[in-house]
C-alpha cells in the first residue's frame, strides 16, 4: 500500500471516528471502520465464526488487508460478487471479504 493509499485509509478512518459511534481502539480499526454498524456486523460475525472455526485473528486480518488493498470496499465486494466468491454466514450468502470483516468484528 503506497503513501496515498495510507492517507486515504487514514482519512476514512478519521472521518468515521469523528462521525460514527465510538469504539475502543483496536489494531484492526483500519478494517473495522468500514462497518458503520459494528454491532450488526458482530452479530453476523458470530454466526460466521460458529461455522468457521479456523478463523484466526492476525492471519485473517492480514488476508483482509491484502484483499482490500487501497480499493473502496464496495468495489472489492462487487468484484467478489461477480466472481461468485461468496460464503455462507449464518447461512446468508455474503461476499467473502464482508464475511471476514464481520468475523473480525465479532472476534475483537
Amino acid at each position, binding site marked *: 500500500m503506497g503513501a496515498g493509499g495510507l492517507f486515504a485509509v487514514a482519512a476514512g478512518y478519521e472521518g468515521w471516528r469523528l462521525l460514527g459511534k465510538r469504539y475502543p481502539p483496536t489494531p484492526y480499526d483500519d478494517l473495522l471502520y*468500514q462497518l458503520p454498524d459494528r454491532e*450488526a*456486523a458482530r452479530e*453476523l460475525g458470530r454466526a460466521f465464526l460458529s461455522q468457521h472455526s479456523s478463523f484466526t485473528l492476525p492471519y485473517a486480518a492480514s488476508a483482509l488487508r491484502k484483499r482490500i488493498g487501497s480499493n473502496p*470496499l464496495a468495489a472489492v465486494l462487487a468484484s467478489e460478487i461477480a466472481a*461468485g466468491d461468496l460464503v*455462507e454466514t449464518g447461512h446468508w*450468502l*455474503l461476499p467473502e471479504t*464482508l464475511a471476514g470483516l464481520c468475523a473480525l468484528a465479532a472476534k475483537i
Partner: protein
Amino acid sequence: MQRQDREQANSGKVLHCDCFLAGHWATANEAYGPLDETRLTFLDARQIPDGTELAPDLAIVGGGPAGITLALALANAPMKMLLLESGGMDFDAATQALYAGQESGVSYIPLDATRLRYLGGGTNHWGGWSRPLDEIDFEKRDWLPFSGWPFSRQELEPYLLRAQGLIEAGPFLYDKLAARELPGALLPLGEGGVHTSFFQFSQWRGNTEHLPTAFGHRYAEDLKRIPNLQLILHANVTALRPAQDVRWIDHLDVATLSGRRFTVKPRHIVLACGGIENARLLLASNDLVAAGIGNQNDLVGRFFADHAIPRDTATLVTFGGEIAGFYKATKDAQGAHFRATLSPTENFRRQRQLLGALITVENRVTLDAVGQAAVTTTAQALGADAGDAHAYSLGVGLELAPDPERRLTLSTARDALGMPRLNIKMTISDADFARYREVLFELGRQLLQAKSGMLRIDRHTRDEWLQAMDWGNHHLGTTRMHDDPKQGVVDTNAQVHGLANLFVAGSSIFPTYSASNPTLNLVALTLRLADHLKGIFR
C-alpha cells in the same frame, strides 16, 4: 358441472375446444353433427351383461386428461372409439381404494391419495399450474444418464398451442410475459444464470369459482356428443390379453366392482390411466409373459418420478420494499392468469449441468437477529438502502435425475378386482439437492450484484431437506419413450415396443421430467399421438 355450463350444453351451444383454438367458437352441432338424443349419456359398465364382447376400432383405457384429450381429438375420425373409465363422474371411495399400494424408501404420498380415480383423473384436484417443457428438456445431455427425447421441442410446439386451449390457460405467452406490460416490476437481478419466468394457470371457462379445468365435468357434454365415441363409466380394465405370439393385444378384460365382467376386443388400444396405473396394467398383464406386457427389457415401472417440492428452502430479502405481487400470487395480464417464478436459464443449466428448478416466492417471514444484522451490514457495505427490506420464504418444484431404481413393482396383495397392487420405492439423491443449491447460490449472487437483495439458504442436510419435502402428484416416466427398445418402453410414436396395436398416452412416457408441471405437456403429447393414430385409421 356448473348450472350455467349445463344449460349451455343442453341448448346445443356447447363450446368445442378445438375451434376455440382457431380463434372462434363452434357450437356442438357444427363440431359433431346433428344431435342424437339417444346417445346423450355415458354407459355404465355395471349394466353391461356378463360375457359381452365389445369390438371398437380403438379402446382408450382411462378417462383422465390424456384419455379425454385423445377422444376429443379423434372426434369424427373414421373409426369407432370406446373410452373405458374406472370411476364415475365423481369420487367414490370403493373405486378410489383400488389405487392403494405400499410405499417404501423416501417418504411419499400414499398411492390412493396422490391420484383420483374418476372421470377427469388428476385434473379433479390439480392447481392448474402450467409451463411448457424447455428445449433443454428434450436434449440428450452427456452428463445426464438416460436423458434425451426422440424428438425436439420444436416438433411439439404446434401441439403445445392446441393443448393450451384444452387446458384453458389463456394465450400461449409464458416467458414472453417478461417483455409485456405487467402489474409490477420484475425483481432486479444482476446478469447471470437465474431469471424470472412464468407459470400460466388453467381457468375453467365459465366456472364462477375460477377453478382449473376439471376435464371430466368440463368436457362431459362434448364427449357425449361425439358420434364415434362411446364412453363407459365404472369400467375397470384388469388385464391386457395378448395373442399367443405376444405381438398383438387380442382383447381387454374389463370388470366392475359390482361383479360384472366383459371383454373388449379393439383393433388398437391406448393406455391413458396415468403415470402409475399405465405401468401397473402392463406389469399385471403377465399371463403369457411373466414380466408383463412391453417389459422385455425390464423397463416398465422403472424411472418413476414426481416433482420434489421442498418447502421453505431459502429466505429471499428484497432491500427496496415488497416484491411484485405476481411473484407471490396469481395475477392477470395480457389475457393470461399467471404467476412469476425464478428459474435457472437453459444456458446456465447446460454450463453447470443442472436440472430444472422453478422457485416460488411464498410467505412473508420475520428475520431473526442474525438476519436483521445480515441485511443491515450487507446493504450498508453495498451502498444500498434497505430501509424497507422485506423477507420471503422460497419454495421450489425440482426436477429429479432419472433413476431406474425409483420404481413401481407388483405386490402380492390384490385389490377388490383381483388385480395385484403396487409397491412404490421412492428415492431422491443428495445430488438432486446439490444441484438446486447451486441455483440458489447463483440467485443469491445475482441479488447482491443488483444490490436489490440477498439470500439465506435454509436447508443443508439431507434430513432437513426431507423434513420439508412435499411432492407434486405428478407421475412420470414409468413407460419411458425411446426409439431403442433396450432404453424405452414406447417408441417416438408412443407405441409399445414389440406390440403392433398398443400405445401409451400421458406422463408415463416422459423420459426426463423437466421442472414444469406435466398436464399441458402430456396433453400436447396426446394430441401428437392422436395425429399419428389418424394416419393409421385413414
